[in-house]
């Protein structure tokens, strides 16, 4: 027990535990299954957000194309489910039974080769992680080895997001085009639309999310985490110390891609369709804002940020559709100008000291650098780390 407590203290696991309790106990009890399913959808975006915390907060690399990896994972799962829903009996009304409906509308008469691996669930699960990571590796290898970073990299990730969107929409025979893949029902015979299925998928999502957070926290607290921070702030000094900066950046980029892929798959499972509108530039930038609002240095904060913004979107866009976008714009601007550390930063700089003053007035008033939520309170050493 003692070692467990020590472990938790060392990794600042208190906040993770709190999040777990909230997601696994409080929300399922407080919300009905429809709203819980909605929260599950938000949590699938959360995977991308925590990836961005590692990539952007710790690594200093801004990627405006995380939607690409989210989409690749999501489409992999969608392809599997679509094939399962397109067995010859259900599709006998088509010109060519046994293939997905959108292929039939596009005069395709047999399943393209790249679809065949998705008939098997194990291969699909591998693809959900492997395909995003492969693309991430390809991109990051060519960029980081040449020391491209900062703004250039961000613009290139945008371009990649655009390419993928155009490719998916343009090849609608193979991908369902702008409609996406709809009508996804079962996975290995298990109906994902039942209430009980939704509960199970929700808990699966929560479990995977918490697991990812734990892994990332472990990385953060280890040598790699410290190196990432150092590279973000003073890249050249780390290089002079003998480390290959590119390798670490490639690693964290692939890590973020893998988590985004998993998020995409969980999204497809819980929502029941996938479309290119989650792949492009706009959703990718939105996912960055989830991390920014929650606190780009805080894993747990990123999840709260995702939940908050998405819940706000659903509430407000129904009641005040006009005001909502103004509000979003204000959030973007305020978060970058006034609260660069997001909600977690506000928590650290205002709530925690007040808490401490309230309950332990005798203790030293100096705020602990390694504070409760496990995130460093400083954004960086200042000017130079973000220059091109």
């Amino acid at each position, binding site marked *: 027990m003692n070692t467990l407590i020590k472990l938790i203290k060392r990794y600042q696991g208190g906040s993770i535990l709190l999040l777990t309790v909230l997601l696994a106990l409080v929300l399922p009890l407080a919300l009905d*299954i*429809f*709203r819980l*399913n*909605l929260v599950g*959808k938000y949590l699938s975006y959360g995977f991308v957000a925590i990836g961005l915390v590692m990539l952007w907060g710790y690594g200093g690399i801004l990627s405006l194309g995380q939607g690409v990896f989210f989409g690749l994972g999501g489409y992999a799962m969608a392809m599997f489910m679509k094939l399962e829903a397109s067995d010859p009996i259900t599709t006998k*009304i088509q*010109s060519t039974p046994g293939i997905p409906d*959108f292929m039939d*509308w*596009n*005069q395709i008469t047999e399943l393209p080769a790249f679809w065949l691996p998705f008939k098997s669930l194990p291969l699909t699960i591998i693809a959900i992680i492997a395909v995003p990571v492969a693309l991430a590796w390809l991109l990051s290898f060519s960029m980081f080895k040449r020391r491209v970073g900062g703004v250039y990299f961000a613009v290139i990730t945008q371009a990649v997001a655009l390419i993928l969107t*155009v490719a998916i*929409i*343009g090849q*609608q025979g193979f991908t369902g*085009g*702008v*409609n*996406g893949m*709809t*009508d996804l029902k079962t996975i290995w015979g298990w*109906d994902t*639309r*039942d*209430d009980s299925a*939704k509960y199970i998928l929700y808990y699966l999502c929560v479990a995977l999310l918490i697991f990812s957070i734990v892994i990332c926290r472990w990385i953060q607290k280890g040598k790699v985490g410290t190196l990432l921070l150092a590279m973000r702030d003073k890249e050249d000094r780390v290089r002079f110390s003998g480390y290959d900066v590119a390798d670490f950046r490639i690693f964290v980029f692939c890590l973020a891609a893998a988590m985004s892929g998993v998020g995409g798959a969980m999204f497809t499972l*819980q*929502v*029941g*369709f996938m*479309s290119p*509108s*989650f792949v492009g530039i706009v959703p990718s930038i939105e996912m960055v804002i989830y991390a920014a609002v929650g606190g780009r240095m805080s894993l747990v904060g990123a999840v709260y940020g995702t939940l908050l913004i998405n*819940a706000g979107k*659903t*509430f407000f*866009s*129904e*009641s005040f*559709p006009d005001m909502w976008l103004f509000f979003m714009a204000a959030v973007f601007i305020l978060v970058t100008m006034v609260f660069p550390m997001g909600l977690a930063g506000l928590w650290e700089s205002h709530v925690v000291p007040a808490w401490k003053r309230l309950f332990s007035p005798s203790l030293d008033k100096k705020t602990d650098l390694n504070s409760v939520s496990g995130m460093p309170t400083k954004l960086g050493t200042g000017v130079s780390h973000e220059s091109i």
Partner: protein
Amino acid sequence: MKHHNDTSSISLETPDESRRRILLAFGAISMAAIPGIGSAKSLPGVNTTGMAITDTEVTVGQLHSATGTMAISETGSIQAEQLAIDQINAMGGILGRKIKVIKEDGASDWPTFAEKSKKLLISDKCAAVFGCWTSASRKAVLPVFERENGLLYYPTFYEGLEQSKNVIYTGQEATQQILFSLDWAKTEKKAKSFFLIGSDYIWPRTSMKIARKHIEDFQKGKVVGEEYYPLGSTNFGSLMNKIKLQKPDCILAAVVGGSNVAFYKALKAAGIVGSKQLLVTLSVTEDEMTGVGGANFEGFYSSMKYFQSLENDNNKKFVAAFKEKYGPNSVIGDVTQAAYLGPWLWKAAVERAQSFDVDKVVAASPGIELTTAPEGYVKVHKNHHLWSKSRIAIGMPDATFKVVAESPELIEPNPFPKGYQ
């Protein structure tokens, strides 16, 4: 109204909405408990599936894009449906109940359409929904309507290949719109070679598939080019040169939304004008004309079942009522008129079934005729599409259309045409 295969309603009820829902239910119960009040309206079987219907009110949903790139096209549908509902309410409503509309914005984003449709059916328990415009939005909401057993009235001319128990299609399907226009081009304009152009998504692609089959197999003509451009694209320079290279007898165009403006401006700039080149479009109505401009479309032809300039009494009354409500500068396109038909067809079916239950309304729909339709006359087919005439009109410099051809008979809808698949 939960089907046992019920899936999520992706909507968070605000406190206002849940309060409203509870009050509505309370109101319904207390009304039922008071004998004598509204007994003539509380016929058995009016609402056996728990929809949001009281003795004085029935709730319907409206799901269109009020924002985004499709707003230019869908605003007309929103207005027309509202006009029809207002007129029906002025006449006393349906089965003694006034219609209450819950409006949702799909924001030109298909996943949002799916989400809002779940809200309208599961949360708001609408008796019917009037909505969608693009095939993508319809395909996104279709699984929801089929799972929740809802009823959708869909107003746009589309590619066919669909027939759902839960949808009534008030617009033309591809064979009604395309085959008539191709035959007209061949017989009236002696067109033998065609250049097919469309935006890149399901409707133009499927439509051109049908067009190509008809041209090559039935008309024994030739397709000299087939090109698709991404939605929203504005760069048609190379396409103009390709057209000039191929010199088709007729261009068949299915360019959609904002791209229309760039497309027709580019045609004009390249010297391809109505007096020199025959062009028939499947996707320009009066709504698009406001953006494209009469000068850029002059002399080209459009194939629809309704034009604002139709000369019949129903249409004159309709146009007058529309302009009175929405301003003298408002225009009415084919989809707007088809949307207008939706609430009237629903009213007729409900009155025939004496119930709002979706199953009963759907069973009562085939055979319903509307002699007051602005397009003249329509009848519901048992495949849930409409018998209607098709027309060809030429674009005038003042951005109106003049009808030059009309199908002699009503065309039977055939969403699964044999020989075209």
